[in-house]
């Protein structure tokens, strides 16, 4: 969306959080990706009826007792809300902030797909009994609303929808809010929950594609200590597969040198080939493929990539490139520095 990448100031990552199949913290994710741990994929059946093929996902394990706050808003909240709240809680931990000066930007692809699926099934099968409790939780911005209430954020709170690399645009929007003085801090979160409906849809792209779920959160500011997002590169737009390759080829020479790469590979050659070939032109000391470990996390994917990159820069005092090739419209990359 934003036309001119050079106009964005560096953003300081004051805090980060992650919920994924590896566990309920950024540390769990860093360990699992660093060790290349194999997390088993679980078949996710349809809520009603059967199917003659498998749709699987690497699911987030049950939350550790006491991790999530007890709050009426969480009583009926969707899994994606819980993931977001936990990731945000981790990102905010130990940082002094004024909730009234905290902005929240959430990016999602499918959002509350479990409740949406359940509610629509009720609409079809028992129209007069469709639950009024489910419907509000199906709305795209319901998770952001719950999170805002939990942290007391009464300023700007927005939900953006689209593909997983939309978080690159969210970073730019956050920088706009911070630069304009609308907020002192901005939480940028990408989140997604797995559901049979969405996982089946994913298998239409590739039969062996394994789903994932979770949330990645970054607490951003213009000042303070922490790893820095130095630049966001893109959008490098495309409409076709061939144009996608060209878009990435155009992007690669513009990227600053980095010692580590966090790519978007999911472990399926046909889906990963363009990105792998484009980045072959650059050399890195280490390359990380978080989605091969965590599954295809859709709207949460690039947020988890960013949270991992921030963890890497924090721990290894390195520079990191996050590749976000996208699947349908534009490629982005984000450069981080310790």
């Amino acid at each position, binding site marked *: 969306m934003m036309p001119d990448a050079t106009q964005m100031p560096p953003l300081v990552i004051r805090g980060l959080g992650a919920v994924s199949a590896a566990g309920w913290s950024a540390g769990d994710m860093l360990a699992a990706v660093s060790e290349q741990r194999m997390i088993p994929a679980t078949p996710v059946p349809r809520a009603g*009826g059967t199917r003659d093929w498998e749709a699987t996902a690497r699911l987030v394990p049950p939350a550790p007792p006491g991790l999530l706050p007890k709050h009426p808003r969480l009583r009926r909240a969707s899994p994606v809300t819980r993931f977001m709240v936990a990731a945000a809680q981790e990102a905010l931990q130990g940082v002094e902030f004024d909730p009234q000066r905290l902005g929240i930007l959430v990016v999602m692809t499918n959002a509350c797909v479990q409740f949406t699926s359940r*509610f629509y099934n009720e609409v079809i099968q028992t129209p007069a009994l469709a639950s009024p409790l489910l419907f509000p939780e199906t709305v795209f911005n319901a998770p952001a609303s719950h999170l805002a209430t939990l942290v007391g954020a009464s*300023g700007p709170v*927005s939900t953006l929808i689209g*593909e997983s690399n939309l978080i690159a645009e969210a970073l730019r929007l956050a920088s706009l809010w911070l630069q304009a003085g609308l907020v002192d801090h901005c939480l940028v979160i990408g989140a997604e929950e797995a559901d049979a409906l969405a996982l089946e849809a994913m298998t239409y792209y590739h039969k062996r594609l394994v789903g994932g779920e979770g949330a990645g959160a970054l607490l951003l500011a213009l000042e303070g200590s922490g790893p820095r997002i130095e630049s966001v590169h893109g959008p490098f737009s495309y409409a076709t597969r061939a144009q996608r390759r060209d878009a990435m080829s155009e992007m690669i020479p513009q990227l600053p040198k980095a010692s580590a790469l966090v790519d978007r590979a999911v472990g399926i050659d046909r889906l990963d080939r363009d990105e792998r070939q484009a980045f072959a032109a650059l050399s890195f000391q280490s390359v990380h493929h978080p989605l091969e470990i965590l599954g295809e996390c859709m709207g949460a994917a690039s947020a988890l990539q960013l949270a991992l990159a921030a963890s890497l820069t924090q721990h290894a005092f390195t520079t990191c490139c996050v590749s976000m090739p996208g699947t349908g419209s534009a490629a982005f990359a984000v450069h981080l520095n310790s």
Partner: protein
Amino acid sequence: MLRCPPQADSQPPQIVVTGVGLVSALGTGWQAHEQAFREERTGFGPISRFDVSERTARTAALVDLPEERLFHTLSARAENRVDHGTRMLLLALREAMGQAGLKSAEPVQAMIIGTSAAAMEHGESYSRALLTSPRRIRGQTTRVEHYQPQTQMRTLAGELGWPRQVMLVSNACASGANAVGMGLELLRSGRAQCVITGGYDAVTELVFAGFDALRALAPSGLPRPFDAERDGLALGEGAGVLILETSAHAHARGATPIARLGGYHTATDLHHLTQPDPAGTAAVRTMTRACEMAEVTPAEIDYINSHGTGTPFNDAAESAAIATWAGDALSCVPVSSTKSAMGHLLGGAGAVEAGICVMSLAGQWLPGSLNIRTPDTIAGFDLVRNFRPARVRNALTNSFGFGGTNASLVFRSV
């Protein structure tokens, strides 16, 4: 591309509206809407698009699109995959660009669009098809692909020859107003000089059933915002688009400003997921700050296009907020709800109602709040019940969404 780089330490640039496009059940385009407001016509009718036999409410304000092809760059088959909402958005876009004198989208640096349901009709088709068979079904890949709103927006951008990503904002009923407001923020920051903003939503089975399950829809089928016996909202569908530019950019390309977009503020009501804070605290803040940015006082606001859904809670909270915000000026502030005529357009509402504010500034008239029998005593403002000519220098519109997203926009005459 015309570039007007921001000057260090300078005031934010003045932002103008150079084009407006509107689609609703009242018609397609500025003229059709103005005529409908003058005639005090409503757009509600029975629903045949999906089964409503077991619903409390059975009407909505739906849009019949022209039968001819709308997308010139797509095959007939490809156009069939474009959802109803995106088609309405294209019509609104074409009108706005035409009015702005934009022959192409080349000068446009960003497109920010609000929606709450996006291409839900394709999601519904996918879900229904899935229930019919345990096997893989032909056509599901297409449904999956075209359910994704970014796919629809890519098609739309392709039609305009605009090779960039559209940003989709989804803050329920405030989505459209937030999209317009984000456009303003972007222009004021100096990062862009010309943006397309707007919002759209189509009525789909899931959304209709959801509001019906919540008992939020008026059983009578007619919304009566600010009526003492109002019993709920009525859904509508449509799209609204505003072309926003810095005045320097508009001047440089010879465009005629229709109005200024002077102020915007958004805040979050933390009271409840679906019910507003009865005191409207966040709404008071959005109206106050938007007026401060626009440098106008409540007494200088000549028209409020209210959120005015017609639900008992919303209208009461908005009335309380307007009373607190306006103070002594309350009885002089004209307020109406155009949802009484075109229904609640959800993600499209804020943008369409922003467009109506621009129309009222350009035409010097106020649209009426229709269907009122007995005005509620909570409405201490000047409730505009009929179309009327008026001196309009400043107009404010409110959007308050599910989840507590509140937004106010202030437009000023040029």
